[in-house]
C-alpha cells in the first residue's frame, strides 16, 4: 500500500493538539494509523504541545502526590493489520465484508457510525463508477479510502489515501473507480447536497 494523499498540515496540527472535532479526529486517527509519514509529522507536532505545556504559568498542586502504584497490567496496542485501521475497529469490526449496509441511491450504500462529539461519521460504499452527489461542505470534510479507489478532479485515491477538503472548495464530487470503493467520511457539519438528489438523501441526515 503506497499512500500518496495525506492530511493537510493544518489538520495534522489540530489533530496533534487534540482540537480536531470528533468525527474528523476519528478519520485523521485512522489515516495516521495507516501512514508512516503522517505518524512522523504527528511526533513533531506533539513536541510543540510539550513545549507549550512547559511554557504555561504553573498552578500549584494542593494535595501531596499519590503513593506510586504497582507497575504492570498495561498492554501495548496491536500493530495495524487488515483493511480496517485500529481506530475504526470498535465501530466497523475487522471485516469490511461483514458491514450491514443501507441502500441510499442506485450503486450507493452507507453505514452511519455513532460518535461522541461534533460532526458525523459514515462508511460509504460506491459501486463501479458511481459518483457522490454534488455537495458542498460546512466546515471540513475528510474522506479516507479503505478499499478500492476514488477519483476526483485532483486525481486518484487508493487505500490509505485521504481527501482533506473544506468549505472553500466549492464542489467536491468524487466517483468510485471501476472496481468500486469503500471509504469512511467525516463531516464537521452536515453536508449540503444540491439538486434533485438532495431531497432523496435528506432523510439520511448528516450524509
Amino acid at each position: 500500500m503506497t499512500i500518496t494523499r495525506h492530511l493537510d498540515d493544518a489538520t495534522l496540527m489540530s489533530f496533534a493538539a487534540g482540537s480536531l472535532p470528533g468525527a474528523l479526529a476519528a478519520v485523521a486517527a485512522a489515516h495516521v494509523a495507516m501512514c508512516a509519514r503522517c505518524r512522523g509529522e504527528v511526533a513533531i507536532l506533539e513536541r510543540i504541545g510539550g513545549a507549550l505545556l512547559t511554557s504555561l504559568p504553573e498552578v500549584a498542586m494542593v494535595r501531596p502526590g499519590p503513593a506510586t502504584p504497582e507497575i504492570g497490567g498495561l498492554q501495548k496496542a496491536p500493530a495495524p493489520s487488515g483493511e480496517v485501521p485500529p481506530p475504526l475497529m470498535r465501530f466497523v469490526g475487522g471485516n469490511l465484508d461483514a458491514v450491514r449496509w443501507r441502500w441510499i441511491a442506485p450503486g450507493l450504500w452507507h453505514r452511519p457510525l455513532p460518535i461522541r462529539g461534533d460532526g458525523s461519521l459514515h462508511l460509504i460504499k460506491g459501486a463501479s463508477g458511481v459518483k457522490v452527489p454534488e455537495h458542498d461542505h460546512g466546515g471540513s470534510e475528510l474522506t479516507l479510502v479503505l478499499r478500492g479507489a476514488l477519483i476526483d478532479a485532483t486525481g486518484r485515491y487508493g487505500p490509505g489515501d485521504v481527501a482533506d477538503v473544506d468549505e472553500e472548495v466549492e464542489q467536491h464530487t468524487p466517483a468510485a473507480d471501476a472496481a468500486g470503493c469503500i471509504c469512511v467520511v467525516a463531516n464537521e457539519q452536515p453536508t449540503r447536497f444540491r439538486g434533485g438528489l438532495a431531497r432523496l438523501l435528506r432523510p439520511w441526515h448528516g450524509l
Partner: protein
Amino acid sequence: MADLLRRIAERADPAAFRELYETYGPRVKAYMIRRGADAGTAEDLAQETLLMVWRKAALYAGDKGSMTTWVFAIARNLRIDRLRREVPWQELPDWRLAEASGEPLPDEAMAEKQTQQRVQAALAELPAEQQQVVALAYLEGLSHSEIAARLGMPLGTVKSRMRIAYQKIRAALESLE
C-alpha cells in the same frame, strides 16, 4: 528528563515519581484549567496524567522520546476523554516507543534536549499572528472553524497560518540534523 523516564522505567524509583509530580503536576494542572476544568478537577486530571506516565514508562523502557511530549500526549487524551466526553482518538506515542529499542546513548539524551529547545526557540520566533492560532489550537482546544469565528477571519487564513507556523518549526528541526 530522559533520565527521569529511565529511572521510572527501569527501577520504579519513587523519588523519580516525586520529581515527575513536582515538575509536571503544576503545568498539567494549568493546562486543564486552561481547557475549562475547575481547580479540583484539574488537579485530579493532573494526578491521573502523571500516574499514567508512571505506569506506561515501565512498558517502554529504552524510550528515546521526550518526557515533556509524553506528558503532553497523555494529558491531551485525558482532557478529551473527561472534559469533552469524547473519544481520544490519538494513540499515545506508544507505537513509536515500541519501535525504538536499546538503551538511549548519552548523546541521544543530549540530542533530545537540543531538539526540545529548538522547538521552544522556533515557537518563540513565530510572528504573533501565527503564535496566536497555534496557542488557540493547543491550549484553548479550538477547532479551525472556532478559531476563524473567534478571530473573525476566513477559515483559509487560519489554516494557512497554522501551516506556515508548522513549516517553520519543522525547518528549524531539520537544520539541527
